[in-house]
Structures are given as structure tokens and as C-alpha cells.
């Protein structure tokens, strides 16, 4: 296929009076493009509103209104020259692009398109920003991709795909003839269909709610955060409505948005795996803030931060994604997150803290506990109860341990400072790639069993400032295993240290204090 590219010159039809500051000029032009029945119209317009409507026309008829805004006359002239229309393709696939020559702070161009197309075409629109994109009355398929700006689709018989980032999507077609995919990251999605339409519905939102006024004909179940079901009879197209931060609405034509009900309140079938998701508070705030809470504090949210100054009782907190920041807990503390950092202050009871992604910082846990992250650094400033720390990748640092510690990381250093007054503690530290540093008081007694596995026996070593260890080396499967065992200061609790690809150091120097930024 021969590719024909031509540049159309924008004709100045109406000259607006230039304003003092900023300088503005509006130009309008009419364009016509041929297209075959069933052809595809592709429009790429970075900035500016787009209105496309199917009509009784045999070709594409467009009115372009170009608004140039500039800081000076000269910049205005440059802006006028700096925008071009490129027309390509052929009658079967007509491609039209508004191209801005260069990005600059001196001028900007927005082109508003008002287009009439034959109804039986397919429409593809690509836009960066606009206030709105509106497409109506199309028998073919519609595809829209934009970054910012609301997208409104109406009466489209064919399939529809809308992918937005920050825009909201409104779709209204009584009986969609093809599959519909409406997805945005930060906006809302609203789909309106006829009350008797038959279709499959898939809906998902991270932070928002899923609501419908079509409860009567709705059957389905939640699978984790995603709803899958049918409305009325099975066998129709699939309407997928998806947003991360906004709400999803499915409305019957004529029904008011006020009459909708949240799906989570409907008696739908639940799969066992989604029951946990069902328990969470779906309409919690993005950030829950509290000062002092007396008694048991229980809170669960699908997505949101939790910031509480003090809990005078036990605490049970779950967030699907967010920061958890607690100043002090006088009882037991159970904090779980599916993603996000945890910052906990003084925990008087047993602590159970886990996150699937993020760092964990704990000031102190008096009764010890379990602290785990699947990826991130763990810093525990003080513990006086048996504590287990696990990281899926990242350092583990315990500044002052006055009880037994078990620490394991897949890769990263493990640094443990034992309380200077402790005569002996049980320590178990493992890293699959990294160093282990153990800081103890000069009188600390223990039965040491330290092993490093290395491919470079010269680089990785075991060193102890306290005497009493003897070293053995052996070669296993191409690696060197160096093992140091013995009693320090007459012996005591078992201290087991295992590092792969790193050093082990036992030092009597005090661990440097960890600097923590104020909460």
C-alpha cells in the first residue's frame, strides 16, 4: 500500500482579537475526508475536545477550531506555525493527526474537533488531554485512549474499548452489540444500559465502591476484589468496568444514581477466598486519623492509610494497601498490610506485624513478637521479648535486643545489637546474600556456631573480637564453607549465624544509634 502523507495548511477563517496577556488566537477550518462504508476513522489529537457523531453522511466532515495561547505576539505566530494536520491512510482506514511541532512554555495549542462520520464506521481516538471526548451514534466499534478528560460514549452498537488514566468514563447504550471495556485508573466508570439488556458484567475497583440499580436481574460472585456475574439472561456481550481509585456504577436506563446499592451489601454468592475481602470496610476514608483510642481498636480497610497516636488497649489493624502509623499500643498489636510501610512506636504487648511490600520500623516491643515483610528493610530499635524477623529482601536491623532474636533475610545484611547488660541471649541470624554483624557486650557469653558459604574464601571471612572460636574450612560443590564454633566468655545460649556470600562479624563495639525521623 502506498502511504500518502500530506500536510494540510490551517486556513485562517476567523481572526480573534489578540488579548493583552496572554495572547490568544482562534482559527477555524473545515475538512472533509473520504471513507468507505465500514472503514475506520483514526483521530489523534493531543490537546482539545473531541465530539464525534454518526450521521447520514457519506464522508467524514470535520470542523476544527484551533486555539493558540501564547506569551507574546512572536510566540503566537510560532504557535500558529507549530501545529499541523497530517492526513494519511486511505479510504478504508483514514488516519488524521494533529501534530504539535515542539513542546514549549511560550505557547500552547488546543484543537477542538467537531466531526460527523457515517454511522457504519469504526472510530479510534487517541488524546492526551481534553475536557471531554464524546462519541455518539456509531454502528461500528469505538476505541478511545486518553490521559486526562472525561469520555462519554453513547449509542454504540459495536464493541467499545475506553482506556483512560485520569479521566472518568460514562457509557450509555441500551443494548450493546459487542463487548465493552471501560477502564480508568483515577476516574469513575458509569455504564447505563436498558433494564432488560442481557449481558455479562465484570466490575473491579481498588479503593472505591461498585454500585448498581440492576439488583433484580443480577447474579454473580466476588473473586477477591473483582465481581463477575450476569445481568438478566446469559449469553450476551461482556461489559467490563474497571477503575483503581474511583467508583463503578451500573445503571438501568432511566434509573437514578441515588437508587443504586453497593454490591457488597447484596446477598451474592461468595467464594471462600473472597470472604476475607468481604470483611473489609469498602467505604473507609483514604486516611483514617485518630488521636487516643481507649480500649480495643479494630479497623480494616481495603485501601487506605491508618494513623493513630495512641491505643490504650489491644489493636487489630488491616489495610489492603496503605501506610500504618501507630504511636503507642498498651496491649497486643496485630497489624497486617497487603502493601505499604509500617511505622510502629512503643508496643507494650506482643507484636505481630506483617506487610507484603514495604519497610517496617518499630520503636520497641516489650513482649517481642513476629515482624515480617516480603520485601523491605526491618528496623527494630528495642525488644525485650522473643522476636522473629523475616524479610524477603532487605536489611534487618535490631538495635537493642534484650531477649532472643531470630532474623532471616533472603538478601541483605542482618545487624543485631544485643543489650550491653545481657549476659547471654539466644540469637539465630541468617542471610542468603549479605553480612551478619553481631554487636555484644564485652562479657557476653555464648556458644557460637557461625558459618559462611562463599565462592571467594579470600573475600568473605568470619571475625570475632571475642576469643574462643576455632575455624574449619571445607569445599562443597565448588563453594567454600567456613565454620567457626566455640564458646565465648565461657559459653552461654546458642548463637547461630549463617551468611552466604558475605562476612560474619562479632564485635564488642556499641551499635551506632539509628536515626529515626519524627512521626
Amino acid at each position, binding site marked *: *500500500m502506498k*502511504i500518502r*502523507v500530506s500536510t494540510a495548511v490551517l486556513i485562517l477563517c476567523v481572526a480573534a482579537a489578540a488579548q493583552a496577556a496572554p495572547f490568544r488566537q482562534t482559527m477555524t477550518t473545515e475538512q472533509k475526508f473520504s471513507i468507505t462504508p465500514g472503514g475506520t476513522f*483514526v483521530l*489523534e489529537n493531543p490537546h482539545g475536545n473531541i465530539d464525534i457523531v454518526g450521521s447520514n453522511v457519506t464522508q467524514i466532515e470535520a470542523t476544527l477550531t484551533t486555539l493558540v495561547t501564547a506569551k507574546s505576539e512572536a510566540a503566537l505566530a510560532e504557535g500558529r506555525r507549530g501545529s499541523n494536520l*497530517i492526513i*494519511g*491512510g486511505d479510504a478504508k*482506514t483514514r*488516519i488524521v*493527526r494533529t501534530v504539535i511541532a515542539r513542546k514549549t512554555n511560550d505557547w500552547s495549542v488546543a484543537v477542538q474537533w467537531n466531526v460527523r462520520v457515517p454511522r457504519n464506521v469504526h472510530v479510534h481516538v487517541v488524546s492526551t488531554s481534553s475536557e471531554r471526548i464524546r462519541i455518539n451514534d456509531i454502528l461500528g466499534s469505538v476505541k478511545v485512549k486518553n490521559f486526562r478528560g472525561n469520555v462519554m460514549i453513547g449509542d454504540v452498537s459495536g464493541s467499545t474499548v475506553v482506556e483512560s488514566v485520569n479521566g472518568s468514563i460514562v457509557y450509555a447504550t441500551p443494548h450493546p452489540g459487542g463487548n465493552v471495556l471501560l477502564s480508568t485508573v483515577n476516574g469513575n466508570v458509569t455504564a447505563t444500559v436498558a433494564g432488560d439488556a442481557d449481558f455479562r458484567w465484570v466490575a473491579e475497583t481498588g479503593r472505591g465502591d461498585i454500585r448498581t440499580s440492576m439488583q433484580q436481574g443480577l447474579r454473580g460472585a466476588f473473586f477477591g476484589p473483582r465481581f463477575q456475574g450476569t445481568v438478566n439472561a446469559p449469553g450476551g456481550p461482556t461489559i467490563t468496568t474497571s477503575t483503581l481509585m474511583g467508583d463503578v456504577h451500573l445503571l438501568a436506563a432511566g434509573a437514578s444514581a441515588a437508587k443504586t446499592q453497593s454490591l457488597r451489601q447484596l446477598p451474592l454468592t461468595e467464594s471462600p477466598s473472597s470472604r*476475607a475481602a468481604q470483611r473489609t470496610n469498602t467505604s473507609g476514608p483514604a486516611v483514617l486519623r485518630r488521636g487516643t483510642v481507649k480500649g480495643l481498636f479494630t479497623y480494616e480497610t481495603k485501601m487506605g492509610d491508618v494513623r493513630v497516636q495512641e491505643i490504650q488497649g489491644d489493636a487489630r489493624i488491616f489495610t489492603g494497601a496503605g501506610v500504618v502509623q501507630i504511636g503507642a499500643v498498651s496491649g497486643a498489636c496485630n497489624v497486617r498490610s497487603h502493601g505499604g510501610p509500617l511505622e510502629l512506636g512503643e508496643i507494650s504487648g506482643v507484636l505481630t506485624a506483617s506487610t507484603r511490600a514495604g519497610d517496617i520500623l518499630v520503636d520497641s516491643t516489650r513482649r517481642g513478637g513476629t515482624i515480617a515483610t516480603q520485601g523491605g528493610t526491618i528496623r527494630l530499635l528495642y525488644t525485650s521479648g522473643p522476636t522473629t524477623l523475616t524479610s524477603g529482601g532487605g536489611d534487618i536491623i535490631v538495635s537493642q535486643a534484650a531477649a532472643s532474636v531470630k532474623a532471616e533475610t533472603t538478601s541483605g545484611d542482618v545487624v543485631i545489637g544485643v543489650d550491653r547488660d545481657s549476659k547471654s541471649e539466644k540469637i539465630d541470624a541468617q542471610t542468603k546474600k549479605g553480612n551478619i554483624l553481631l554487636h555484644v557486650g564485652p562479657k557476653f557469653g555464648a556458644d557460637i556456631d557461625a558459618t559462611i558459604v562463599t565462592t571467594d574464601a579470600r573475600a568473605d571471612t568470619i571475625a570475632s573480637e571475642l576469643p574462643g572460636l576455632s575455624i574449619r574450612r571445607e569445599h562443597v560443590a565448588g563453594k567454600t564453607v567456613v565454620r567457626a564454633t566455640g564458646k565465648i566468655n565461657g559459653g552461654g545460649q546458642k548463637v547461630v549465624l549463617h551468611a552466604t556470600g558475605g562476612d560474619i562479624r562479632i564485635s564488642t563495639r556499641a551499635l551506632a544509634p539509628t536515626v529515626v525521623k519524627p512521626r
Partner: protein
Amino acid sequence: MKHLSDQELMRIVQAGDFSPASEIYDRYSGRIYNFAFRFLRNSEAAEDATQEVFVKMMKHANQFNGEAKLSTWLFSITANWCRDYLRKADNKPKDSDDVLVTLPGPTADLPDRHLEQRQDEQRVRKALEALTAEQREAILLSRYQGLSYAEIAQIAGCSEGAVKTRVFRAMETLKKLLTGESGGDRCLNVVQ
């Protein structure tokens, strides 16, 4: 010349006799050219690369350590040349400004090769383009040149572990693009 090993040919060259040039070129030019072509996606640059690699091989023959493989050394020179080429700003592959080139033409315009085979070839080319330069280098040397990770590490100037990671990530990306399957990082036994 054909009966002499690479090391023997290189010793002749190191002695100042350039007559093995043609034989060495015939042995390795195909591999070097194809590697450069697939890496740079530019036939002109691949031709320049091939020529310059062999000229460098002749001029700096004394840098060749006879205990190593000649192919490893040649790929090393080629990879360095290609990286330098890409580093220059105006040699970075640019996306075509004109969306029209992505439109499918009528089948009558396609060359004689079987349509499906040509489409697969296009898909593979596009998929390789989606890789980073380091990943593409690693997968080209591993998959198409059959080099070991140790050899690739030497050529790329990184560790074997890094090569393993690059090949793994390249395969994940290629798998996603060519078969539509993405391996999640969650296995069946992940704790909830």
C-alpha cells in the same frame, strides 16, 4: 588455511602475516553480522560493525589470548562497538513519526514468503525490540549464538549472575509478548 585452528590462524596474524584474514572472516562473519543486525536493527550499521570488528581483530591481534575462544573475543569487540554506536544520541532507534507505517497492507503486496511465517518473524522482531539493550544482547548471544553464560559475561563485562538475570527477564518479556502468557510472581503456595 581451512585445516588450521583459530588459534593457529591467529598466531600467523600475530606474526605479521595477514593472509588468514579471509579464512577467519569466512568462519565468523555470518555470526558477527547477524548478531550486530539483530542487536542494532539496522543493516547499514551491522555492515559497518562487521567490517570494523574484523579490521580491529587484525590490527590488534596481539591482544588475543590464545587460550580463549576467538569467537568470544570477536563477540566482545562487536558488543562494545554496538554499545558505543547506540550510546551516540542520534543513533538511538527512533519510533517512526508516521503512524501510517503500522497499517497492514493488502496481502497482494507481501513478499513471496508464507504469510504466517512472515507474521511470526515480525512478531519476534517486535518482541526483541521491547527488550532493553542488555537483555537483547544476552538473549541474542544465548539463543542465537549458543554461548554459555560465562562467555556472555565476559563479552558483556558483567557477572554470570547478571547474565542469568538478563536472560530470565528477557524471556519473561518475550513470553508475554509472543505467547500472551505472563508468569505471576505468586506461586500456589504463597501465604495469604
